[in-house]
Structure formats: structure tokens, C-alpha cells
């Protein structure tokens, strides 16, 4: 009796959280999952009949008439995952040392730096990416400057290359990597670093055995926050990549906005979500184990 009443009260207390999750997370997800098994409507939308070719097109079964299996989708997915991973890596390598440097600044400069790094959030992403377009294009600031200095004779081919895409993604994602990293680095127990050196560990050993494991939560946090939106990003490849290298995000956008194939777009979204979730689960479990590992 008492237990039942308790759980009723608990249910009541949890209701807002459940509702919140349900409305903002679960419901859209369920709709996408449902749509991914429905027949595409001729002019967008869905027809209410079961249809498995949406997944067949991606994974290798198809009727070969209206629905054709093409490995291109998996290749695009792989490409997007690689770019996202590269973005994580580059932002990490950039932000990690900077986080240490910032954490040692006097308080006033530190706050100023943290303010600077959040500054981009105050303006539109599209505008900022167009600014990069102006910097990178052949007659842009970068090339003019380098040529003005006599460092190069021909403009560098950066705009509309994969390099520009990575550059843009890194630019967009740096704050998301930096903030969790900085929090972890700032939380790092200096005494433990000293203890390690005191016990005979040189700088490299100290870094690997103490600093890295201690900041691992920040690294994982940053990696997750950067990886997820990077996989689905389609604005950067469009603007800075010249729409030449299709990313999975572009593909999904295209299914909804020009191919009028909502179910296929939903199936692609489900595949992305599953892959990202799997990658994250594996990464987090591995990180846990490393953190707990014995040498």
C-alpha cells in the first residue's frame, strides 16, 4: 500500500521531466522512426503503408526498379563520420594546450578570454561562415595578405576543398570543445601533478598517467558535443565546400527539401542516430575502462 502510494507520488514528481523528455525528445524520434517504415508520398509526406525499401536502398536490398541499392549512401555516411572524427581531433589538439594556457592566466585575462570564446554565439552561423568565404576565396583576405607579403605567387586553393570544410567545422566547433575541456583542466588537481613528478615521473609520464586521465571527462564531453553535430552538419560543406562533397546531413536535408522523400530522409536519420549512438557508447565504455585500468 505504502509502496504503491510512494511510487504514485514519485510518478507525480517525475511527470514534468517525463513530459519534457517525451515532447522534446521521444515524440519526434518516434515520428521519425515510424516515417522511416512508410511509403513516400508522391509530393512529400507519407502514405500509410509499410515499406522497407527505405532501409533496403541503404543496406543492400531493393526491387531494382524504383528502388535501387546504392553503396553511395554508406560511403557518404562513412565520409561524414570521418570528417566529424577529424573535426573532433583537430579541435581537441587546438583546444587542449590553450585550455592549460588560459587556466594559468590571471583572473581578469582569463574571464576576458572566456568571453571571447563565447562571442561567436552572439552572431548567426551563416554570417560567420560567409565571413570565412570572404577570407578563403582566391581574392580573399588570406590570399591577398600572403601574396602581399610575397609568401606565395599564386592564390592558395582552399575555398571549396575538403580543407575548407574541415577548417569551417573546426571553427564552428572550437567553443564546444573548449568549454568542457577548460572546465576539466581548471579542475585539475595541481597537487596531483606535483605528486607525480615528486614520485619520479617525468613530464611525459605525468601527462599520460595523471593529467590525461584526470581531464578525460572533459575530453570525452567535448568530443561528444563536437562529434554529434559535426556528423549532421550540412551548412559548412555547402558554403565552404561548394556543395561538392555530399555529407549525410546534406543528404537528409535534400530528401526533405528537394527529393520530397520524407521516409527515406527519416531512414537515413535513423541510421545516423544508431551509428552515432553506437560510436558514443563504445567510446564512453572504453574511456571508463581506461580510467579504471590498472597498469
Amino acid at each position, binding site marked *: 500500500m505504502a509502496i504503491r502510494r510512494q511510487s504514485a507520488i514519485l510518478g507525480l514528481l517525475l511527470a514534468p521531466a517525463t513530459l519534457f523528455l517525451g515532447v522534446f525528445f521521444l515524440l519526434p524520434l518516434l515520428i521519425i522512426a515510424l516515417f522511416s517504415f512508410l511509403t513516400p508520398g*508522391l*509530393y*512529400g*509526406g507519407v502514405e500509410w503503408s509499410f515499406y522497407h525499401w527505405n532501409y533496403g536502398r541503404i543496406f543492400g536490398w531493393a526491387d531494382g526498379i*524504383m*528502388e*535501387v541499392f*546504392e553503396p*553511395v*549512401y554508406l*560511403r*557518404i555516411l562513412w*565520409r561524414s563520420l570521418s570528417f566529424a572524427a577529424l573535426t573532433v581531433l583537430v579541435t581537441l589538439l587546438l583546444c587542449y594546450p590553450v585550455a592549460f594556457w588560459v587556466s594559468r592566466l590571471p583572473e581578469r585575462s582569463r574571464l576576458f578570454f572566456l568571453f571571447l570564446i563565447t562571442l561567436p554565439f552572439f552572431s548567426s552561423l551563416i554570417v560567420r561562415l560567409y565571413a570565412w*568565404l570572404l577570407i578563403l*576565396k*582566391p*581574392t*580573399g583576405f588570406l590570399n591577398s595578405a600572403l601574396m602581399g607579403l610575397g609568401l606565395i605567387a599564386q592564390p592558395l586553393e582552399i*575555398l*571549396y576543398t575538403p580543407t575548407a570544410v574541415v577548417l569551417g567545422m573546426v571553427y564552428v566547433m572550437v567553443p564546444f570543445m573548449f568549454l568542457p575541456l577548460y572546465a576539466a583542466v581548471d579542475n585539475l588537481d595541481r597537487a596531483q601533478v606535483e605528486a607525480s613528478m615528486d614520485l619520479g615521473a617525468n613530464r611525459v609520464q605525468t601527462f599520460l598517467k595523471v593529467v590525461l586521465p584526470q581531464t578525460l571527462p572533459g575530453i570525452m564531453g567535448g568530443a561528444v558535443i563536437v562529434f554529434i553535430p559535426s556528423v549532421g552538419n550540412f551548412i559548412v560543406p*555547402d558554403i565552404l*565546400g*561548394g*556543395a*561538392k*562533397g*555530399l555529407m549525410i546531413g*546534406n*543528404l537528409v536535408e*535534400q*530528401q*526533405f*527539401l*528537394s*527529393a*520530397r*522523400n520524407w521516409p527515406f530522409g527519416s531512414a537515413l536519420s535513423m541510421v545516423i542516430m544508431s551509428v552515432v549512438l553506437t560510436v558514443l557508447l563504445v567510446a564512453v565504455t572504453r574511456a571508463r575502462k581506461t580510467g579504471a585500468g590498472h597498469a
Partner: protein
Amino acid sequence: MKTQMAGLALALSLTAGAAAAQETLSLYNWGDYINPEVLTKFTEETGIAVTLDTYSSNEEMLAKIQAGATGYDIVFPSVHMNDIMLKLGLLEKTGINAHPDFKNIDPAFLRAKEDPAGEYCLPYAWGTVGIFYNEDVTGPITGWADFFAIPEKTGAKITILDDMREVLAVGLIMTGKSVNSADPAEVQAAADYILSHKAAVTAFTYEVPAMLTSGDIAAGHFFVGGNVFFTEMPNIKYIIPAEGGTMYQENICVLASAPHKENAQKFLEFYLRPEIAALNVAQQFNGTPNIPANELTPDFIRSNPNINVGPETMARLQIFEDIGAALKIYDRAWNTIRTAQ
């Protein structure tokens, strides 16, 4: 652009607010696809405040309306989308063809198959998609073959539109097929044509006016409306390719879900007037189906054969139709084009 428009809309609603009670009209149009002065004039005459929202593709607009976006009165679909929306029952019958001024409209522009008499929508404007080029860099060019040869001949860059149907249309035109082909082999051949030139193309983009002005590219695939940016640059020319090009036409349609149908009707009637259509052309550089309006447009527009096209050029132009389920074939071809290295 959008913010500029929003600002305009705000200004319009302010003036209207002073004039009359809350009479409003809500337009959902392509970005940069109406002369703001037209709206100002409409508000001045009728006291109806106009708000303007924009989209960048037919499908975006359709998806929004299908997903249940409400509050819009008027949309500007391309002809094939006009057909689709009629089939989907999204449009309101206006009887605009019964208006005395409807005689101003050239019947050749009643292209919507589902609305052959113009009972629903009013033909709004039309234009061509062709090639802008910097003649100082490229020398004279006449069509697609010359265009794709620019990078190899001069080392300069070219871009084509980031638009599935427009890009594949170029391939279809160059392989001698209809831009509305539903034959997988023909679409594949068109894709192969584009793929064989992909290396020459710097980007799929709409950034043509800015990049052409700055000299970052020497030529780009773009809409005739781009001429507005080059009135002061005689070295930048626009052509309708000799091999053929595409044309587009948008109609003014009232949504079945429109909250202000009477005001929408007033706007359609307003736009039937030649001087209003001409006012729009003067800023937009595209064609109008309003016959007397053509006589009122500025001379430099009227006399430019690439803008005010004659019958023989018209013969080279194709217009997109709704291709139904064959869209999938295009989608696959487009993915192949965009992922090829």
C-alpha cells in the same frame, strides 16, 4: 536580404496601422523576388499591411505548407509546383480570369496543366537560367560547351547552381533530351555528362554575383535576375546558351488555408495592372506575362535580347514540369554527381 525584407514589412505595417484597422496580407515568396515598391504602393492604395516571408526552393515552401504552416495568404510556386499544389488541394479558386484586366495576360503563360484557364492562379513573372561570364577573362562564349572549356583554356574558375534539376537539365540539354525526361538511362547519361565536367567546376553555388564581381570566378550558371548586379559592369555578360537553357515561371496563388482571402484577391487584381507589373520588372530584370507592361519597362531591359527574349530564343528554352515518381531517378543521379571525387 531576409532582414531587410522584415524591416520593410515592419515599416509597411506601421504605415498601414496609421491608415486603417488591422487589415493585413501575408506573402510567402522566394527571396529577392518582388520589388519592395510594389508592396509599398499596394499598402498606400488599399491600407492593407503586407508581411513577407521568404523561401529558397519550391520544395521548402511545399514542405512548410504541408507540415501545416498557417498564416500565409499568397505563395509564388513555379508552374510545376503550382500543378502539384493543385493536385494536393492546397490552393484556392480565385476566378481571377474573370477580371476585365485579365486580358492583359498573354495566354501562352497559362502553363499550369491543372489550371489551363487561370481560374486559380495569376501568372506572375518568368525568366531564364543561363550563363554569366566575365568577357575580359573568357572572351566571347556562346553556350555550355564554351562554358565548361573556360577552366582549361584560361585557368579561371566556373560554378554551377546547387540545384538538382537545373544541373541535370544542363546534362539533358547537352545530350539532346527533354529536361523532364523520366527515362533512367537518359538521366544517367545526363549525369555522366556533368560528371565528366565536374573537375572543371569549382563549386555548386548561388554565390555567382559576388564571386563574379570580385573576380574569384570567370563564369557562373545563374538566373537572369542576376543582371541587376551588373548594370555598371559592361564586361560581365549574360547569355542564354546556344545549346538551350531552362526557363522558369512563377504564378501568384492564394492558399486554401489563407486567412485573408479578400485581401489576397485585391493583391492579384492589383498585380494585373500593367504599370505595377512593369514596376516589378524594372527592379527584377525578368520577364512579365503582362503584355502592355512590356511596353512600359525601361529601354535597356526591353532592348536586351537575353532578357526580353524573342521567339527564336524562346524556342531554345525548356520549362520544368512535375515529373512525379521519376524525381527519385534525379535524386540518385544528383547524389552520384555530388559524391564523385
